[in-house]
């Protein structure tokens, strides 16, 4: 509940709170919905409506790493559909699924903003460009071996979530 307290002062606090919950726990637990409704003076339907509207919010615990594969047009032009087939086969999961060993959850995404270096894949918060099937296999193996192998956001820049505006 400190997450609620930390964000309660924000206007339109529900989205920032949901992001903070997902960052902390990896997903939005069903039990959080009535709690948030009470705390923010909303109906449960309101909170449920918001959680279910946005693709980003998860209802189930994900794997240790999230793999987002871009399915949008620029990546399609560079073979993203074949890459998606390869990844599904290699990880033995479909979209929104988690690998049997709990390492990866696979998600589709529409555009990662890396359209000149397609196809693009994001593993956790780290972006990869020109991802061939072989390159994907390397990245997945490196991520399994060392979860921080590709950290791109300097520590100084992360964890600065609290805003200034009231």
């Amino acid at each position, binding site marked *: 509940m400190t997450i609620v307290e930390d964000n309660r002062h924000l206007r339109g606090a529900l989205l920032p709170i949901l992001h903070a919950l997902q960052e902390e726990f990896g997903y939005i637990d069903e039990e959080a919905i009535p709690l948030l409704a009470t705390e923010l003076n909303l109906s449960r339907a309101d909170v449920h*409506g*918001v959680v279910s*509207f946005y693709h980003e919010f998860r209802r189930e615990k994900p794997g240790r790493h999230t793999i987002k594969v871009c399915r949008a*047009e620029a990546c399609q032009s560079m073979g993203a559909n074949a890459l998606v087939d390869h990844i599904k086969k290699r990880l033995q999961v479909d979209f929104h699924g988690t690998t049997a060993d709990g390492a990866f959850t696979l998600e589709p995404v529409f555009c990662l*903003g890396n*359209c000149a270096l397609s196809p693009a894949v*994001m593993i956790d918060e780290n972006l990869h460009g020109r991802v061939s099937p072989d390159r994907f296999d390397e990245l997945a193996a490196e991520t399994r071996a060392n979860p921080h192998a590709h950290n791109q956001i300097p520590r*100084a820049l992360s964890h600065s979530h609290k805003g200034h*505006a009231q």
Partner: protein
Amino acid sequence: MSGHLITVFVPRDSAALSVGADAVAAAIRAEATRRDLPLRIVRNGSRGMLYLEPLVEVETAEGRVAYGPVTPADVPGLFDAGFLTGGEHALGHGLTEEIPYFKKQERLTFARCGIIDPLSVEDYRAHGGFRGLENALAMSQAEIVKAVTDSGLRGRGGAGFPTGIKWNTVMQAPADEKFVCCNADEGDSGTFADRMIIEGDPFCLIEGMTIAAIAVGATSGYVYMRSEYPHATATLRHAIKLAYDEGWLGDNIHGTNRTFHLDVRVGAGAYICGEETAMLESLEGKRGMVRAKPPLPALEGLFGKPTVVNNVLSLCSVPIILDKGGDYYRDFGVGRSRGTLPFQLAGNIKNGGIVEKAFGITLHELLYEYGGGTITGRPIRAVQVGGPLGAYLPPSQFDLPKDYEAFAAQEAMVGHGGIVVFDDSVDMAQQARFAMEFCVAESCGKCTPCRIGSTRGMETLDKIIAGKNVDANLDLLADLCDVMVDGSLCAMGGMTPYPVRSAVKHFPEDFRKKQHAVRVTHIAAE
């Protein structure tokens, strides 16, 4: 060692990181230590020549010298070749600013991107930063709005509405509170200019938003970022903190009695939140459902208050207009499309990246003179301009000048300046189907033509692709497209038919591939 420290630039832009810029920076640092050569590494934004990333630059007396694309394995060789003094190497491109791709551009909005350290206020100021805001602080609200109106700046998010007119409406609206909201929900495939400038020159956006706030009398603002851009979000948050620390944001900005508070909010993977009213709903903590207009957000926007909603590139064009004057900006461009637009060359293109040019440049110039054709070496068959809601154009249309009116006449969009290139292996019936599929996934669901029309459109295209009653189903599809265009509440359903119709119009053969085969099977069965 004597003399000044040599400076090496290795970008920290996500696109550069996506092809290994961090590893290259680490390799340069390690090699310098091994050779006992002291040097300073600056992590700059990208110059926009993404096909050369990671692009390493070295500061020399003649200017910055470029090498790229560099891999960690190239680093010892670069040292051997004397790259720290601009020595020749197979990956060398000479002076960065003499590279034709870069030299021929007209960089106004992206003037500093890739040059400065994005998180140094000092560097920003040394390159002309905050001059526009300093001018604005000495002007009346009406004078600021007039400068923006005179510049001819139109919204860079897609619709192309004149920015000065929007600001004037908000300025004149009486209210106890007003807002400035920046729409950084850059969800169109083929666009990355917002991300690049936020990562490479974040103070430019902060300055533009502060000028907007002063002009209209707003005291708070929000930047609505995509959750798919974690690096840009982290950079912007850090830049906002620095701006507060140095008195460029907050109460009494530099003792002028002006106040502007700025915060970042992150979306959650809903394309529709790029539509301005859906974005406002999302900022209020709700589902991103499109609002009916009127009322205009300029009068009843965020929390029901008068609100400026502008795209990142519109707001980033404001500082230079206030610095150099509306006339300076208006002198670029053609017709009613004034100034420059950072075009983004994406997809199957040899030299992908940002090309900032005045309006009026043709697709042909962009695709061949800058882009160099496809990366696969096959002929270009189609380009999609203006994102997933933009038309597909065949090579016969490549001489169209890029301006709002010329493109609108073709149901194409200048939009956010994104251009996605496909070679001759593309199946345009599948691309048309994808446009409908995307609308199914991303429709907010408020209006029927968009919510149901897209689903029916996808089913109809599946039948056409399977060769079933192709003529009748193409007629049905055309009818459905009319209903979606005329009957949808916003551009999501209203423009999804553009890629579909243009694919049918320009590439009809792709919709009849199975038709013949099916007919033969029927005859055989009879």
